């Protein structure tokens, strides 16, 4: 491999398709083309780490959750209630979470300057602004790429969505490649093809696998490449995942737990998330819908947050009780917040200038708040941060170094935005 003299290009070119080519710029070196570049060496931190993201889709109102401003021209009708940490108040719509503030870390000074759902989600999930031409990997792909996974039988990157289709998402791993893309469990159900269908008996399955392996072994004696290896191995991997299909079945959890979390959709999904994390899935993202309340914001936030509050709190309790919270990073986020100004239909609109995110767990100072907004929430007054800072913070909290690079096709790309840094005040 020749040395390249590369001109520095830190400039994020805002062009239509500043695409990172998947092919080497200088031509492939001798050898087998098409080999995916090795990922950044996995850092061995003490014990396995995992991450849970709860995505409140649509833009949850920070004024109705983590940063209430009661009795102001923007505050709306809800109270701020005291929490288990003296001096910290959150909205009365989160009474259970309030009792667990001592487990939480609030970031209240977020300004992501992006009011559009898709681009806002990109900022929060990739730590970068939407850049034409480069597809940055989402936090789940990065986490499953970087964190040690002793259990390789289960996929490392799982999404639980309220609806849509179960399947495999090639998109969200960006340049890390489809190997780190998520598996989507729509309404918590695994992709149809994950489970062996009734038309294939277990005997048949065994027979098929044995034969397939024998045929491949024979073929490999005379013809073999990195691609044929990748192909044949993928079946072994799939068999392992399929064998662990029970991990995806939250119905196997204690019914008392199901009652505690609540029998509603989000309750079930959070219980499934707990199960997957305990079974060894590195990253789970649960989406709760929807919070885009341009109309009658207050009624709808009552409804949605009442679905959120209890399972969220139960999951925190369970992680803490099982000693998992210190090795699990939990993040509650949205694509942005909502306007302090209440519109004429009791709604709040998109707002990214001053909003909040709540976190808990691995590497964080519990019971802490960083960042402040002014009296009526219209501006950040202290410690303003954006998606890049948060992205650094997640991986620092997980014991990794987000200033290191990925090397898709040999080109160095920092894991997190080099123009930002971790919010060290909330890291232990």
């Amino acid at each position, binding site marked *: 491999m020749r040395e390249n003299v590369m001109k520095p290009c830190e400039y994020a070119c805002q062009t239509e398709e500043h695409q990172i080519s998947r092919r080497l710029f200088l031509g492939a070196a001798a050898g087998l083309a098409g*080999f995916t570049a090795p990922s950044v060496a996995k850092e061995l931190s003490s014990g396995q780490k995992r991450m849970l993201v709860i995505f409140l889709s649509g833009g949850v109102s920070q004024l109705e959750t983590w940063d209430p401003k009661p009795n102001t021209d923007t505050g709306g009708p809800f109270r701020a209630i005291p929490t288990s940490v003296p001096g910290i108040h959150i909205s009365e719509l989160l009474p259970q979470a309030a009792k667990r503030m001592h487990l939480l870390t609030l970031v209240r000074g977020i300004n992501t300057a992006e009011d559009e759902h898709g681009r806002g989600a990109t900022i929060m999930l990739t730590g970068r602004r939407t850049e034409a031409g480069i597809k940055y990997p989402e936090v789940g792909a990065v986490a499953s790429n970087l964190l040690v996974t002793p259990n390789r039988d289960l996929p490392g990157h799982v999404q639980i969505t309220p609806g849509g289709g179960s399947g495999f998402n090639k998109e969200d791993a960006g340049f890390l490649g489809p190997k780190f893309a998520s598996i989507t469990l729509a309404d918590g159900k695994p992709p149809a093809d994950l489970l062996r269908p009734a038309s294939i008996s277990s005997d048949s399955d065994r027979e098929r696998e044995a034969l397939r392996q024998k045929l491949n072994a*024979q073929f490999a004696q005379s013809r073999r490449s990195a691609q044929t290896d990748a192909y044949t191995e993928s079946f072994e991997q799939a068999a392992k995942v399929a064998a662990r299909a029970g991990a995806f079945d939250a119905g196997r959890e204690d019914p008392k737990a199901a009652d505690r979390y609540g029998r509603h959709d989000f309750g079930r999904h959070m219980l499934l998330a707990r199960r997957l994390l305990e079974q060894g899935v590195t990253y789970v993202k649960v989406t709760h819908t929807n919070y885009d309340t341009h109309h009658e914001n207050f009624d709808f936030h009552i409804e949605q947050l009442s679905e959120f509050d209890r399972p969220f709190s139960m999951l925190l309790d369970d992680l803490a009780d099982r000693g998992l919270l210190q090795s699990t990073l939990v993040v509650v986020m949205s694509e942005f917040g909502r306007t302090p100004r209440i519109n004429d239909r009791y709604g709040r609109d998109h707002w990214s200038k001053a909003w909040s995110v709540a976190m808990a767990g691995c590497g964080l100072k519990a019971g802490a708040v960083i960042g402040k907004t002014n009296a009526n929430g219209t501006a950040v007054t202290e410690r303003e941060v954006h998606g890049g800072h948060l992205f650094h913070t997640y991986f620092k909290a997980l014991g990794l170094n987000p200033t290191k690079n990925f090397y898709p096709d040999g080109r160095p790309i920092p894991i997190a935005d080099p123009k930002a840094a971790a919010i060290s005040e909330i890291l232990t």
Partner: protein
Amino acid sequence: MGSPWRLLLTMALASTFFSSKLQAEEPLHKGIDRIIAEGFESPTKAASPAKDAEFLRRVTLDLTGRIPSATETRAFLANRTPTKRAEWIDKLIASPEYSRRMQEYFDVVLMDRRADTKVSRAAWEEFLRTAFASNKPYDELVREILSNDGANPKTRAAAKFFLDRDLEPTIVTRDISRLFLGRNVQCAQCHDHPLVDDYAQEHFYGIQAFLNRSYLFPNAQDVKAVIAEKAEGEVSFISVFDPKKVQKSTPPLVSGWKPIVDVTLEKGKEYKVAPAKDVKPIPAYSRLEKLGAAITAQENVAFRRTAVNRLWALMMGRGLVHPIDFDHSKNPPSHPELLTLLADEFVKHRCDVKWFLREIALSESYQRSSEIPPGGQDVSQDRFAVTILKPLSPEQFGYAMIQATGLTDVYRKELGNNASETSLHAKLSAHLGPFQRIYGSRPGEPEDAFSSTLDQTLFVKHGDHVQNLLSPRVGSLIERAGKLKEPTDMAEELYLTIYSRFPNEVERRDIAELLRMAKNRTALLSDIAWAMLASAEFRFNH
């Protein structure tokens, strides 16, 4: 020295130092073999010639996108004619399946599986297929694609390259340069390419300057939009590395030869049809009109180099320039004189694609085995000493599964006298969708490096699409094999149908024994067939 001149000089030097001419009376395929052989470090490390079965499956997949049927395989293997390989090649190239294969292949190359918004799939496929059936010269095809404004409904399909990219200038520029000049100049939009000295910002904008006066009329959302053009407008660019932010411009320019000189017209005479509200303007001088000719001009060496490099890669599994869209002086071809020879001969033969592919198929280099000889493991792929394993395209894989399981024959029988390539294809393509969706790259993205993802694997392992293909319906492989008396015959039928070869003794014995012992023979046949379909031998073209 400016970079376009550097490129030109390199190529000129390359052609003088090496004998890139055919020896007297030497057909191209002999010239290929001669030069490839010259590139071997040691002849013993080259693979031996492919056996008949190996050759048959490979060339049938490469030229018609499908595997041979068991009947075809038996016949070919039994055929004693010394010229049978050449005859088979000719038969394939003359068949309507060849045009279909080229249509499907070039559709993906040219359109990256983009959604069909302004030109229907049927019209585009018809256009491409007819072009390959009639063996339209390749340069003529490219000129047609790059010069059609979409206004004439009869020829509109040719404009799909522009129209279904919404004539987005950056994307169109990038793809013209990548596909027809072998230059991925994407990174040269904001600055001279950081890694490739030969790709300057000027090269990017030189191409874009052909397009910059054109736009979709009445607007990009209209499915009937056509391409309109103004009489004025210049590209301008600044390098993001330039602290002085100097504004630069360029006339339309294909790197490597002289720029286009715009015609300047008298004021008032710039338009044949002047722009007005709801009126499509037609300029008296059109930059866009010059594009096709400029790209395919004789002087533009890059065009023919890229054309032959891509066709070579199609057959051989790897370009002489590799990666195929990074042709530049620091990434020389593995066999420079061969590339020049291929390019020159291609043009001499008026860019005749059938002729070219035939020559490659006839060569020993193409007909080499993929079995690595002892000591050959460390020989670089770029020597073409051993045939490179190629994963089947989504289409090839789908058709192969459908053929191997017997469904193709079922349809052929159903159609009876009405069976034609078109009518049969209509039936087969109904089953192709999931293969394209699950194995194809994302719309708008060029085909990527091979990867085997969990969803693809589970599609084969558990998915009902594949399970259905394996069901023992009348006329299926399972049913056919099941009716045979002898387990050894069953083994043979399986291998001939799925792997397009006879089983060797060990394979025959092992399979036969399994079948003898089976409690449920049909189920076991299904299992064996599945294992073969899921194997690497089936998934790859070898």
